[in-house]
């Protein structure tokens, strides 16, 4: 009996080994096996939450209750909600202005750091600091910098006799928007600068040397050599930068909570306020889902626009 069992087990083991050996040679099987962990990860932690969020946006779910399917009622409600539209305006303004500044200043910094400077490595490390500091910490620092009574900027300007009253950084709608954008720019520049610096270092020096021999000015070298070579990197870097900026939450939450009178509410902060603090999960999810078209547009623009070969070569459509 024991021998019979042992014999059967040995046969099965041999069969399994043989199957494994065949599978090990099968490219399709191996491909699927190697993809499986990544696929499970993506489905569990990215696709499922995203789909759940989309589903919630079509329900009247509240904290503690699953909710019923209500179609597009949340979106209809948001369509007539002035605070929602204000948050859309704020988010677009915040993203566009901050991204332009981050790109311009980041590129400028990258070009400087690409030159032969003394202590170049140290400067590069310093540039990264704002990116390394946790956002909440830098936001708290800005909170003090922008304080309506204790701002270091206001104090300095008052000491210099340039202003009489402290600047109302976060109390006035325009000032508040400019202030949170400035804080975001400060934090986002290192990412753009260091990424573009890496891109700049991939441009062969021989191209610049040839252009110089041909009599190209520094501007011409930048416009017709550096920029076209850098465009693919710019496309990727700015796509990420736009995504980070569009979905920003921490800076606003720490600095203003969306105030004054919702002047700095972004879609992300409004989504949290309505969904979690207000308990209206369905509506909060709808606001978050409403961000997707904007984000997709940014991605599509960058991938199908900025990477076009004609644009890279300085031409037009």
């Amino acid at each position, binding site marked *: 009996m024991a021998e019979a069992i042992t014999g059967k087990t040995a046969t099965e083991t041999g069969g399994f080994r043989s199957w494994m050996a065949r599978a090990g040679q099968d490219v399709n099987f191996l491909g699927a096996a190697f993809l499986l962990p990544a696929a499970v990860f993506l489905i569990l932690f990215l696709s499922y939450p995203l789909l759940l969020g989309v589903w919630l946006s079509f329900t009247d779910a*509240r*904290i*503690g*209750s699953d909710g019923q399917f209500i179609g597009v009622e949340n979106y209809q*409600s948001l369509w*007539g*909600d*002035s*605070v929602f539209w204000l948050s859309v305006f704020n988010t677009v303004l915040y993203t566009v202005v901050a991204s332009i500044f981050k790109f311009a200043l980041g590129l400028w910094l990258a070009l400087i750091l690409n030159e032969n400077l003394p202590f170049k490595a140290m400067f590069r490390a310093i540039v990264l600091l704002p990116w390394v500091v946790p956002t909440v910490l830098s936001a708290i620092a800005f909170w003090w910098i*922008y*304080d*309506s*009574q*204790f701002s270091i900027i206001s104090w300095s300007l008052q000491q210099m006799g340039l202003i009489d*009253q*402290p600047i*109302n*950084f*976060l*109390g006035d*709608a325009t000032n*508040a928007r400019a202030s949170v954008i400035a804080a975001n720019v400060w934090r986002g520049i290192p990412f753009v600068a260091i990424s573009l610096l890496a891109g700049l270092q991939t441009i062969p020096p021989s191209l610049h040397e040839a252009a110089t021999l041909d009599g190209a000015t520094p501007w011409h070298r930048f416009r017709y050599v550096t920029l076209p070579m850098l465009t693919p990197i710019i496309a990727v870097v700015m796509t990420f930068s736009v995504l980070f900026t569009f979905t920003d939450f921490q800076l606003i939450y720490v600095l*203003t*909570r*969306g*105030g*004054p*009178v*919702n002047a700095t509410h972004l879609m992300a902060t409004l989504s949290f*306020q*309505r969904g*979690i*603090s*207000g*308990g*209206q*999960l369905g509506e909060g999810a709808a606001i978050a889902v409403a961000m997707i078209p904007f984000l997709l547009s940014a991605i599509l623009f960058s991938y199908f626009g900025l990477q076009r070969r004609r644009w890279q070569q300085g031409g037009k459509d």
Partner: protein
Amino acid sequence: MTDFSRRGVLLGSAGIAAGLAGAKLLGGNPALAQDAALRYKPEEGASLRVLRWAPFVKGDEDQWIANTKKFTDLTGVQVRIDKESWEDIRPKAAVAANVGSGPDIVLVWFDDAHQYPDKLVDMTDLATYLAGKYGGWYPGLEGYAKQGDKFIALPLATIGNAVCYRESWVKAAGFSEFPKDTKGFLELCKALKASNHPAGFTLGHAVGDANNFCHWVMWSHGGQMVDENGKVVINSAETIAALNYAKELYPTFIAGTESWLDVNNNRAFLAGQVSMTANGVSLYYTAKKDPATAELAADIRSSNFPIGPVGKSVELCQTTSCMLFKHTKYPEAAKAYLQFMYERPQMSDWITSSSAYCCQALKSYADNPIWTADPIHAPYAKASETLRPNGYAGPLGQASAAAMADYIVVDMVAEAATGQRSPEDAAARAEQRAKRIYRS
């Protein structure tokens, strides 16, 4: 986070008799003797997780932990206390409710319990017992913890709110005493501004201070968010009168109050930048404990907000309740713990140690000596008795919580006060926003 190890006497299955024996072993501590009368028998091997807000007054937390330790010593039930910044309690509790996991007991704010009543253990038996023994619950606080006839939580305390002002500056401005009505209050603010000691009341997205101030502005003039049936009535002549009042008051404030969050008014007051603000008693104790501001502390006086045309004191005040989630594995242990914490030896010590920051929920604790220990405490003493609930005069629930979370009243007052909108437009916009929430 605080962990309590199981030690001392283990009552567990031994019940009341062992409890008495244990109390004797520990020297006949009267608190422990009383605790032997626990109405609930903790489950075998029970342990609890409590999530509470980070303290504003150190003594509150210390005493809460000490009381908890006594409970652990008595019953052997381990209790882990986690604390979060007070504004983070709501999202944490909300997630726990939604996923059905996490802390057993949460100390929540305002109408949180009404957001997910189905997830909470019925506390009616314990609440009724405590009310019978300790003079009953204050109605305003009770409403936050009750749905119909059922207690979905236990009211714990009101965080009293009062106007804190610098007496010397008020006197220098020509006022021998703090004004009792809104008209006199406006005159005082104007006089303080003229003497370069402006007032400062929060108009930013500050959950506590801004809601307290802005609800007072609206209510004191007779405005209200909804009527008894939950119909939105905020766009009324009374509300517009309130907003006109805010518009007159605002120029007397220090610049920037529309950006203030909950901590800004404390900072400005303690730095001598403003002569007057509204806050919990923690502001006074912060000044008192710092030698650098001892002189300022001696100059602080407190008062309730003045009475407006409505003719009576109407203040929101923050309220806190203890919720017990249905996902708890040990409901009996949790109820035993809460009973223990509410019994006189523990609750009295906790109220005393909270230094007038936490106003009692049960009427018989009103005789706590803390209320007469310092004249500054007086306006905070009746917070539970006089508070007006959020979403007045409508029912507490998901709509009232959502309206507060959306800062509808705060934004309305801030818009009108700062001149961003006319009072009429601000009230109309608030009405539009409120109707979205109160639509169902």
